């Protein structure tokens, strides 16, 4: 495969079967390897789409500064795109994210502003909004409400899955900005009647949920619950257990949030087996495990890993 530039190579990722983890010959699991994108995560799709849409709309012009609240991956993707296109990038990231994320952001030339760990990404959004008011000339792409985020998945992720797996019965992905599920989910619902669109949401330690008033919670503007069939909350223990299983049994080295998604996918598979149904369950491998090595998720006992992840924004 040949591309004119790195940016042209975003997307078009492999869908690989999981012969050992699939619950049976009629209920199969398929992993969409989004770690094969240029910066190693699914966020390259949304980041590039948001930048290019802002260019089309005339919001981004050479020399502009982009501002974005991010728990990491979107920032890393934006940093790569901004470097290649000549923009300055300022990322607001919770302080309780893995050390590798900061290193990667800086490597690609982004400036990092930390937001308090209590409150997780909600707090990063608040800090970025405040900075946006102080710097009205900076462009906040705002992944949580930018239609180009979901549109990227409607235009690419969804069609790729259906083309590779015309028998797909379930699509499972993580819920963060909701862009993947809203975009790919809408496309798949329109083109594959009866498909189930299932969200796996990471359940963090208490610190991440903060101590603020409940009315200050956060639901991304992109979120439309009618796109989803259902939504599961998956804690760090199950996420780590599954991410290790994915490595041990299928050789795929994925990030921790993928473990949460796989946990939901396996649950759906077991239910299909019990019901005597045929199922082809496609799920997203959001990124590789590399930038989570320092969290200790891949070594020691599950108890130890769970303790180490407590209070971390691990997805």
């Amino acid at each position: 495969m040949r591309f004119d530039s790195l940016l042209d190579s975003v997307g078009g990722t492999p869908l690989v079967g999981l012969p050992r983890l699939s619950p049976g010959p009629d209920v199969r699991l398929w992993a969409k390897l989004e770690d094969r994108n240029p910066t190693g995560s699914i966020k390259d799709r949304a980041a590039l789409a948001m930048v290019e849409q802002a260019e089309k709309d005339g919001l981004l012009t050479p020399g502009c500064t982009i501002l974005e609240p991010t728990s990491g991956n979107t920032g890393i993707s934006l940093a790569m795109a901004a470097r290649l296109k000549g923009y300055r990038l300022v990322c607001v990231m919770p302080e309780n994210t893995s050390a590798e994320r900061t290193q990667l952001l800086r490597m690609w030339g982004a400036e990092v502003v930390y937001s308090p760990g209590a409150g997780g990404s909600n707090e990063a959004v608040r800090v970025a909004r405040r900075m946006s008011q102080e710097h009205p000339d900076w462009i906040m792409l705002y992944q949580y409400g930018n239609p180009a985020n979901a549109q990227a998945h409607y235009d690419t992720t969804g069609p790729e899955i259906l083309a590779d797996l015309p028998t797909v019965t379930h699509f499972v992905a993580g819920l963060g900005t909701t862009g993947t599920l809203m975009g790919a989910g809408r496309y798949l619902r329109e083109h594959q009647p009866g498909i189930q669109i299932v969200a796996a949401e990471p359940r963090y330690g208490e610190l991440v949920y903060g101590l603020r008033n409940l009315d200050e919670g956060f639901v991304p503007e992109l979120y439309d619950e009618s796109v989803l069939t259902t939504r599961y909350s998956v804690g760090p223990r199950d996420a780590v257990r599954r991410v290790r299983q994915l490595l041990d049994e299928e050789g795929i080295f994925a990030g921790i949030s993928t473990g949460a998604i796989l946990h939901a996918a396996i649950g759906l598979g077991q239910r299909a087996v019990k019901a005597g149904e045929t199922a082809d369950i496609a799920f997203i491998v959001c990124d590789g495990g590399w930038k989570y090595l320092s969290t200790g998720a891949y070594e020691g006992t599950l108890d130890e890993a769970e303790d180490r992840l407590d209070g971390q924004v691990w997805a």
Partner: protein
Amino acid sequence: MSVEVRIPTILRPYTGGAKTVEAQGDSLSAVITDLDTRYTGIGERLVEEGSLRRFINVYLNDEDVRFLGGIDTPVADGDSVTILPAVAGG
């Protein structure tokens, strides 16, 4: 019907600091009503005009109740109910 309810940090002042409490009821609505009789005021932090508040997520055995039956979702003996504020990611 007795279920275990996990209380988020922000609501623990109502439960005297308890992280998990037992509650009775055959639906989520009944469980919340039961909680409110013992932990006065917690109900209105969760429910507004008969629906769950926008920034509150409630999970029955890890599944979001908005996809089960909302506030009328039936619960069974031994079920686990988790209450969490909505958070972002990305």
